[in-house]
């Protein structure tokens, strides 16, 4: 579908959010709570924080929640009762006010969850998700979307994108058929874009730090390099980076049972944990934090491109901002690129 360009002539996108809510959509948007801004379900537009650089967590949680029910069961005398997930019952939802790097994260997620097994938990939720992103007027030193094939106004992964082009004006790009369907809810408050605005003028500048393709090619020869131990020596092995990342998809399965009744849950997991690869025998193929760090980088920058033809990193910089010891992935990859 060719991208449709419209203009929204208003200082605040609240009216758009209002239309979505009135139509009964579940709307998730950036919300400020104390010192942080995070993505949360909203009940009114006034809750939305439009001016934060980005949110602490990524948008993946609307299709890949931090804890998800797989099945519930009850053991009865002669049978087992199960309560399966009704995949057709996920609500229609809209991500409103997320960044282009959030939207882009769904591309590798889709690839991972539809590769050898079609994960309905993700796919069916994603099917019901419309992504309305807002292009970035500002960036910080952690951002590096332009080094991984993205940019502050990239529409990849978005269904609709808003770009602020003036105090009382937004460019609205309707990108996909899904976007077109949802845009019908607020079409009447949009006007045609007759001036053919160049949105580049209104985007943040994100200087390129490295080339994804170059790094990806280099990585296959760097498996034995001492750089991994050197870079990871300060890594604490917590899960913060994996959990805030828009593309990390690893999960743990846990059974919570209580005499005859139980629930199987799917929970976020992180390859940075020391126990992530521990075998039942006790052997751990990734004994040191450096090996685990290597795995993280390789997975995103080498294995995913080669196996699934997608980039495993969107350059959002969340991992670096959330890391308690400042493991700055842009810095690390730039160093690797120089080897």
């Amino acid at each position, binding site marked *: 579908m060719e991208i449709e360009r419209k203009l929204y002539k208003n200082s605040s996108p609240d009216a758009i959010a209002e239309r979505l809510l009135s139509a009964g959509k579940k709307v998730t948007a950036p919300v400020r709570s104390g010192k942080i801004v995070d993505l949360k379900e909203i009940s009114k537009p006034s809750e939305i924080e439009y001016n934060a650089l980005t949110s602490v967590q990524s948008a993946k949680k609307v299709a890949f929640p931090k*804890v998800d*029910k797989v099945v*519930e069961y*009850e053991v009865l005398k002669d049978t087992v009762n199960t309560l399966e997930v009704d995949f057709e019952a996920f609500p229609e939802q809209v991500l409103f006010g997320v960044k282009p790097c959030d939207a882009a994260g769904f591309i590798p997620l889709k690839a991972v969850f539809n590769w050898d097994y079609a994960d309905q938990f993700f796919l069916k939720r994603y099917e019901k998700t419309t992504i309305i992103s807002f292009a970035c007027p500002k960036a910080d030193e952690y951002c590096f979307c332009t080094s991984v094939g993205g940019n502050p106004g990239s529409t990849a992964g978005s269904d609709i994108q808003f770009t602020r082009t003036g105090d009382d004006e937004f460019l609205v790009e309707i990108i996909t058929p899904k976007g077109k369907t949802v845009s019908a809810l607020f079409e009447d408050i949009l006007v045609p874009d007759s001036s053919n605005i160049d949105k580049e003028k209104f985007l943040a500048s994100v200087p390129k730090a490295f080339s994804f393709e170059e790094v990806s090619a280099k990585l296959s020869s760097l498996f034995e390099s001492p750089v991994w131990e050197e870079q990871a020596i300060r890594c604490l092995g917590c899960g913060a980076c994996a959990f805030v990342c828009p593309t990390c998809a690893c999960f743990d399965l846990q059974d*919570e049972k*209580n005499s005859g*009744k*139980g629930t199987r849950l799917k929970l976020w997991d992180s390859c940075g944990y020391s126990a992530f690869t521990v075998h039942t025998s006790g052997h751990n193929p990734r004994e040191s934090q450096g090996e685990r760090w290597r795995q993280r980088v390789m997975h995103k920058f080498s294995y995913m491109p080669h196996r699934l033809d997608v980039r495993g990193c969107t350059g959002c910089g969340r991992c670096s901002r959330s890391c308690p010891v400042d493991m700055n992935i842009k810095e690390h990859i730039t160093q690797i690129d120089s080897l």
Partner: protein
Amino acid sequence: MQEFEPKIVAFVCNWCTYAGADLTGTSRIKYSSDVKIIRFPCTGRIDFMLLMKAFANGADGIIVSGCHPNDCHYTSGNFHARRRWIVFEKLIDFMGIDKRRICFSWVSAAEGAKWADIVNNTVAKIKEIGPYEDYKKLASSFSEISQESHE
């Protein structure tokens, strides 16, 4: 309307309180049957998480009881337990758990009457405060069938 029958779980030590409860029975002293007694070798063995698990599984009130200080069958188990409870009681109060719902006591093997009082008073108190809905809601917010009381 059915009267609220509280679910109380009692964590007691074998040598003092459990024997004391036995005496209550043999003395034919009537006391509420709303209490489920769990026997431990010593109060020192009672993990604070067990109390939280009791609440999570539907208990409205808890009794923790053992030998008087200096009378522990294992000499010092109850001394360790006492320190643990002093800290635990403070922490749960800070986190917003209703500490009125936990009754700590020393009941010896000869105190059959005291045990009946402890139980009856606790049941009366919990009946007054009501079921522990807040914590039950916290504990069961993630499932539909698996969090009903499993007695």
